[in-house]
Each structure stands twice: as structure tokens, then as C-alpha cells.
């Protein structure tokens, strides 16, 4: 039983990690705490749901579409709204993104009703035996793809020119500007990439969780804790912290009961903030200097 | 007994030894200079003395009291005041209010509205800022903002004033005026430690000077003697100049 809980926890943690990468990068690169991030996850799930319902498309195949749609949304919001607000005050971004989250969630609710939907792929009930436990195939796929995307993004940041521009801007905005990197463009691209990854997480989540306008909220706690635990702006931090978070949650539920899951998460969160604010892999990114 | 006694002050930042067992005494009423090339550790020393940076080793005594690693605000209340190299005015308060904070919370500890405003105006008079008492700091020139730093410190009625590169960025006239100001401050009995790059000021003002290089104390003595020592010239300008100037290597 413990083994079952452990495996489940780790797999779920992988998905949470993917859900968090975008949020963490956006915070690290431009110091924006995007409270609308969880609605990107939600909308990604909806894209997958509709492609599944109307075209019978497999959820995993629909992931690129969800990512593309969310990229455009994230890019647009950053370029046309947030870039202007950041110039005034960084903390204002908390309020603006709160407003954007209200808009997106309510709009979805109005357009598609708050009915709960679900995506049942053909292989939804298949399970695989792993380490003496029974693991649903969809969970394994979700965790696996999350890991792959996370690593791909990590490599992109380190190798691709654009990725390095993003990292450079996070470390020193002024110097990057002087070296010909346009910070506004970098911000918009980072926001787009972050939203895309959130959309991917949403796509994968649709196979595991019910899809509704309120589903973003259930990710909020995880996203905050994993960001801070892993270190703001650190992709590798998110991946590792994601697994750790999933594991801790699973064990808390197993040993102390599901009621304590949230409290353990918050205790972890506050503990990290007070003892080691930079998290596991964090360095002083832009948000620190602000 | 010296007003300030420093023994073996040591501060490490990761692998870098920013201060390496620095010891010196500052007598009451002196103007004491701290000079050295960039990166020598001068500001770190000031941060150590004002308790902004914690010492990894060493002792500090102020007026006979042990003050190693006490909280900054305690030191201020004992009578130590400092200025910042990169000025840190309170931008949303007027010049007068900025200085009044010093009168309220420094060594002076004046809590009555009339008292602290009067003390503020007095400090503003001494630094020549009284005409701009109702201005907001962002509207001041750099030279005025530097004088605001000094006024704030003066309003605290300190016994020891630490000036961190207060001449940096000023033109010749402004430097002359600031030298005059420091002389006047010293004349009222306040002990002053001056960190400076502007040699003219150091030579004009200081009774004694100490030279730092790479976190270590090179030498100490009368300013004119110290700046001509081969080791000091070499530290600033390199071996060739040292040889050329003094006729021998350090």
C-alpha cells in the first residue's frame, strides 16, 4: 500500500512539476507572479477536451494544439497588458493577473457552463504493473511526457539562442539589453512558453482529473510550493521539487490522512521561505533585485 | 582609551577574504582617513564598523564598550552615524523629514515634535540645505543629496561619524565646500572616519590615515607620509610607478 501511494505520488509530482515550470520561469525572468497561470492549465485541458469530443483526437496528440493556443494567449497577455504594467510596479502584476484570472475563468464558465467534463481515452482503464504496484497507463504517460517536456525546455534554455537570451535577461536585464536583447520581446516569449507548458500540463491533466472552469484552483497550492521549493526561475528545480512535492503529499495522505495533505504542503512552503528562501536550485534572479 | 578600537577584524564572502585581521585605533576628536585602491575593502570595513556586515572574527570596542556584532540600530543609539556611498534618501519624505528621522532615532533620541524639527533645521543649516527643507529628495542634485546624507547623520548627534566616499562625483567647488563642512563638524568635537579616493581631501583633512589593499592593512600614519610610501604607491599605481616616483621598489 505504501509502495502504491509512493508511486502514485511521484507520478503525480511529475505532472505538477510541468504545470509549475512556466510559472517559475515567468517569475524568474521578469519578476511577475502570474495568478492567471492556473487558468492556462484549465484552458489547455478544455482545448484537449473539445478536440477529443468533436474530432475524437487522442489527448496526447492534441497536446501540441493546446500548447500552441496557450502560447498565443500567454504571449498576447504579456505583450499587450503586462509589459506596460511591469514598468510601473512589479507588485501590481499580482493584482492585474488576479483580474485576468477572473476574466478567463468567468469567460470559460459563461461560454462552456460550469459542468464538469471528462476525457476518457481508449486506454484510460489500462494499468501496468510496476514495482509490485498497479499503475494506470494514463498516469505513467502523463508523468513521462511531463519529464520529457521539462528536460526539453531545460535543454532549449541552455542551448538555443533564444533560450540563452531568456536566461541572460533573467540574470541581468540591463546587460542583456546592452547586448542587443530586447527585454520586452524576451518577456513576451517567456510568457508564451510558460503558458504553453501550462497548457501541456492541462492537456495531460484532462486524462486524470475532471475538467471544469474551477480546475485551475486545485493546482494553485502545488504551483506555489514547487516554485519556491525548487528555486524561482529554475527549470531543473521545478522538476525535482515537483517529484518531491508529489511524494510528500502522498506520504502525508497515507500516514496522516488526506486532511493533512494541504497543511503539510503549506508547512513545507513556509518552512522553505523562512529557512532557505532560494529553494533547492535557486539563484538570485530578477525578482530578488526588485 | 581610544574612542574606537578595532582588533583583527575579519570578514569572508564565500571564498574571498574581504577583511584580513585589520586592527587600528581612532582617538576621540580625530579625523581618520581610510584609503586604498578599488576593491581594497574600505566599504566593507565601514559596514563592519557600523554593524551592517557581521564580523567573522575580531573585536570592536566603542567608547570602552564591546560592540562586536551588535544590531545596527544599537550602535546608532550609542553614537555612531554613517553615510552611504550610493545615497539612500527616504524618497517619499521631505528633506526636513529625512533629517528629522535622524534626530528622532539617533543618539539624540528627541521625541517631541518641536525638538526634532528644530534639531533637523539646525543640521540643515550646518550643511547649507535649509533653503530646500521642503523639497523632495528626487528633486535634489547629487551634491545636495550627499549633503542630505551628512545632515541626516548630524541630526543624530553622533560621537563618531563615518563618511563613505562623500566626495565621489562632486566637482572641485563642491569638494572644497565639503572639506570645509567636514572641518566644521570635526571642530564641534565629533570624531570622523573618512573613506576617500579624492587625495586632496584626505591630505587636507585627516590627522591620520590607514591604507588598505586586498583586505589587508598596508600601513598607517600621517597622510603625507603614508601616500609617499613605496608600498602604497605600488598598490595604487603599480611597481613601475613606485620605482619611478620613490627611486626604489617597495
Amino acid at each position, binding site marked *: 500500500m505504501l509502495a502504491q501511494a509512493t508511486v502514485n505520488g511521484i507520478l503525480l509530482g511529475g505532472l505538477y512539476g510541468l504545470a509549475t515550470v512556466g510559472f517559475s520561469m515567468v517569475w524568474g525572468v521578469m*519578476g511577475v*507572479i502570474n495568478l492567471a497561470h492556473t487558468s492556462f492549465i484549465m484552458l489547455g485541458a478544455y482545448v484537449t477536451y473539445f478536440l477529443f469530443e468533436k474530432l475524437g483526437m487522442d489527448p496526447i496528440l492534441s497536446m501540441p494544439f493546446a500548447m500552441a493556443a496557450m502560447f498565443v494567449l500567454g504571449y498576447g497577455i504579456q505583450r499587450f*497588458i503586462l509589459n506596460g*504594467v511591469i514598468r510601473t510596479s*512589479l*507588485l*501590481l502584476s*499580482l*493584482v*492585474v493577473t488576479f*483580474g*485576468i*484570472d*477572473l*476574466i478567463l*475563468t*468567468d*469567460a470559460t464558465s*459563461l461560454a462552456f457552463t460550469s459542468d464538469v467534463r471528462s476525457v476518457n481515452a481508449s486506454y484510460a482503464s489500462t494499468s501496468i504493473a510496476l514495482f509490485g504496484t498497479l499503475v494506470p497507463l494514463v498516469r505513467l504517460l502523463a508523468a513521462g511526457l511531463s519529464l520529457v517536456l521539462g528536460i526539453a525546455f531545460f535543454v532549449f534554455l541552455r542551448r538555443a539562442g533564444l533560450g540563452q537570451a531568456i536566461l541572460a535577461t533573467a540574470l541581468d536585464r540591463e546587460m542583456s539589453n546592452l547586448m542587443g536583447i530586447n527585454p520586452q520581446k524576451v518577456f513576451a516569449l517567456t510568457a508564451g512558453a510558460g503558458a504553453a507548458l501550462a497548457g501541456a500540463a492541462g492537456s495531460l491533466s484532462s486524462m486524470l482529473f475532471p475538467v471544469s472552469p474551477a480546475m485551475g484552483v486545485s493546482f494553485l*497550492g502545488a504551483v*506555489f510550493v514547487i516554485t*519556491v521549493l525548487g528555486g524561482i526561475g529554475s527549470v531543473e528545480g521545478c522538476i525535482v521539487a515537483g517529484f518531491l512535492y508529489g511524494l510528500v503529499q502522498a506520504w502525508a495522505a497515507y500516514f496522516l490522512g488526506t*486532511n493533512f495533505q*494541504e*497543511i503539510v504542503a*503549506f508547512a513545507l512552503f*513556509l518552512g522553505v*521561505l*523562512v529557512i532557505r*528562501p532560494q529553494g533547492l536550485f535557486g539563484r538570485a534572479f530578477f*525578482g*530578488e533585485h*526588485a | 582609551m581610544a574612542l574606537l578600537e578595532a582588533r583583527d577584524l575579519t570578514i569572508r564572502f564565500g571564498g574571498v577574504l574581504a577583511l584580513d585581521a585589520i586592527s587600528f585605533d581612532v582617538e576621540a576628536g580625530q579625523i581618520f582617513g581610510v584609503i586604498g585602491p578599488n576593491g581594497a575593502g574600505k566599504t566593507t570595513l565601514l559596514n563592519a564598523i557600523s554593524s*551592517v556586515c557581521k564580523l567573522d572574527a575580531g573585536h570592536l570596542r566603542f567608547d570602552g564598550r564591546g560592540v562586536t556584532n551588535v544590531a*545596527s*540600530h544599537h*550602535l546608532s*543609539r550609542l553614537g555612531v*552615524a*554613517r553615510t*552611504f556611498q550610493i545615497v*539612500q*534618501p*527616504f*524618497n*517619499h*519624505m521631505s528633506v526636513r523629514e529625512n533629517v*528629522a*528621522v*535622524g534626530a528622532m*532615532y*539617533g543618539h539624540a533620541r528627541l*521625541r517631541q515634535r518641536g525638538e*526634532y524639527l528644530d534639531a533637523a533645521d539646525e543640521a540643515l543649516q550646518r550643511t547649507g540645505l535649509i*533653503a530646500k527643507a*521642503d*523639497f523632495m529628495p528626487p*528633486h535634489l542634485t547629487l551634491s545636495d543629496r550627499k549633503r542630505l546624507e551628512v545632515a*541626516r547623520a548630524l541630526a*543624530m548627534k553622533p560621537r563618531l561619524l563615518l563618511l563613505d566616499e562623500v566626495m565621489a562625483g562632486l566637482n572641485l567647488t563642491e569638494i572644497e565646500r565639503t572639506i570645509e563642512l567636514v572641518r566644521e563638524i570635526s571642530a564641534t568635537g565629533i570624531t570622523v572616519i573618512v573613506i576617500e579616493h579624492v587625495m586632496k581631501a584626505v591630505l587636507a583633512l585627516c590627522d591620520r590615515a590607514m591604507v588598505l589593499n586586498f583586505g589587508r592593512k598596508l600601513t598607517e600614519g600621517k597622510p603625507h607620509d603614508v601616500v609617499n610610501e613605496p608600498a602604497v604607491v605600488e598598490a595604487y599605481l603599480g611597481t613601475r610607478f613606485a620605482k619611478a616616483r620613490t627611486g626604489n621598489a617597495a
Partner: protein
Amino acid sequence: MSDAAILQRQAKVSTFRPLLWTGVAVGLVVLCVAPLGISAYWLRVLTTVLMYVIITQGLNVIVGITGYHAFGNGVFFGIGAYACGACMAAGLPFVVGVTGAIAVSAACALILGRPILRLRGHYFAIATVALNLAAVQIIIQIGGITGGAQGLALPLSTWEPKPLYVAIYYLMLAGAVVCTAIVALLLKLPLGFALRAIRDSERAAAVMGIDTTKAKVFAWAISAAMTGFAGGVWAYWITFIEPSSAFDPGVGVKAYIMLIIGGMGSVLGPVIGASAMEIVSTLVWGGFLKAHQLILGVLIVVICIVAPNGIIDAGARLARSWRSRHGAS
């Protein structure tokens, strides 16, 4: 800008002031007699406005004056509500309940303040959000007299509804006036100077002799006391509280937006911000029941883009650009 121009501009501000205070006096008189002539619906709206004035003034102390952005300050609203609720459920009278609300909230801030106020900027902001969210779980865990997840019913008053709601209105009005007065007083006292110094440059404040930790924690305690008072009265008013509504993060966020609209760090800013936002969102709710979250969201975004320093500042900027375009010096 020339010296003369600067002083001239400051002179203009000081002629504006007596006008402002006359307006305030008039407003107060109106608020005092209002319950006599308005419907129960509008009495409720005004009571809510005054409640938010209190919460926003509380936020003003820690955010506007001290510069520590407590995005989750609403946690004290819930703590106050539950403190009052628990006292009254134990049979104690309302007066004790409200006092308990103030005391417990302030105590929580004093205890939690030391570790949490060591964090700066964003870290502090989200730590308070975490606190706000965690409180929900903590109440559910404690259960017992707090009612846990089931919620807590407060004993009903023996008064008739009409006079009861009028009394609660006057209580909120008194609270709003007192909190605003406290903020005004704070700005004049040395503590207020210390807090503003901390906001502008905590490093400089420390070397000038300010015990920054003590000052910050004390400010948060004042903030918590105000917010807790509002929560305590609210609990008695609606007679039934549960964790998700008492600790609704939206309360803190709304107050934050009201503070932004009204202008941070000013005495009357929260009054203006709370009135404007609450009345507008009531009208929006009335008119657009279905899409009111959406419209609220749009309003928030628009305000942040157009008037990030408060509507007074935005108005002043507008006036200045109008004047410069029309030739005035």
C-alpha cells in the same frame, strides 16, 4: 523644475486641503444620518463599504506606510471572525467577542511577524497568501468550538432586525472613523516616520537607529487588529461563518485593489478606494449577475493600466497634461 516652481506647486496643495477636510466633515454628517432615510439594501451596502474602509486602512498600515505588501492580509479578517465566533459560541457576550477578535488577531501578527517579516518583496507577499490559504485548513483541523468544516453559527441577537442592522452600521462607521484617525495619527508620530523610512530604505533606517524588526511587527499588529475587528463584527452580522468564506483570499485582494485605487500611504485613500470599488461592484453585481466576475476582472485590469498610483494621482496627471496642452505654465 526651478525652486520657485516647486514651492509654488506645494502651495497649491495646501489651499486644496481645507476644502478636502470640509468635504470630509460633510461626508461624516451624511453618513451619520443616512440610516434614517435609506432602504435595507443600501444600508447593507454602506455597512459593507465601511467594513472595507476598515480592512483597507489595516492594509494601508502594513502596505502603504511600511511598504510590506501583505497580499494575504485577509487572514486576520478570518481570525477575527473566528475569535469572535468562538467567544460567543462559548456563551460570552458580543463585546467580549469583538475584543477577542482584536486581541487574537494582533497576537497572531506579533507571533508570526518575527519570522515572516524577515522576508522581503515577493517572498513576503506570497508567504502571506500561503498563510491565508493555510488558515482554512487549520480551522478545519482544529474543529471543536470553531465548528471545523461544518461552519460556526453565532448566537442570534435578541434585538429586532432593523435596529440591529442600524447598530451594526454605526459600529462599522465608528470603526472606520477610528481606524482612519489612527492612520492619520500614525503618520505624525515617530513610529510613522520609522515605518515610512523602512518603506523607502530599510538599510538606511536601520543605521539611523530604527529597530526595524520591532517597528514592522508592531505595524503588522495594528494592521491585524483593525482587520480582525472588521472580521469580528462581520461574523456577528451574518451569524454564520465557515472557513472558506471567512478566509476568502478575495477579501485581502479586494482591499489591496481598493488601496491601489485610493492611493497608498494616504489617510483618505482607503476611504475613497473602498467606497468607489464597493459601490461600483455592487452596481455591477446588480446589473450583470451572470458576468460580474468577468466585469470585475476587466475593471481591475483597466485600473492597473490606467491608474496604478490611485485615481487621485491619475486625475492629477490628467489635469497636468490638460493644462500643459492648453498653454498654462
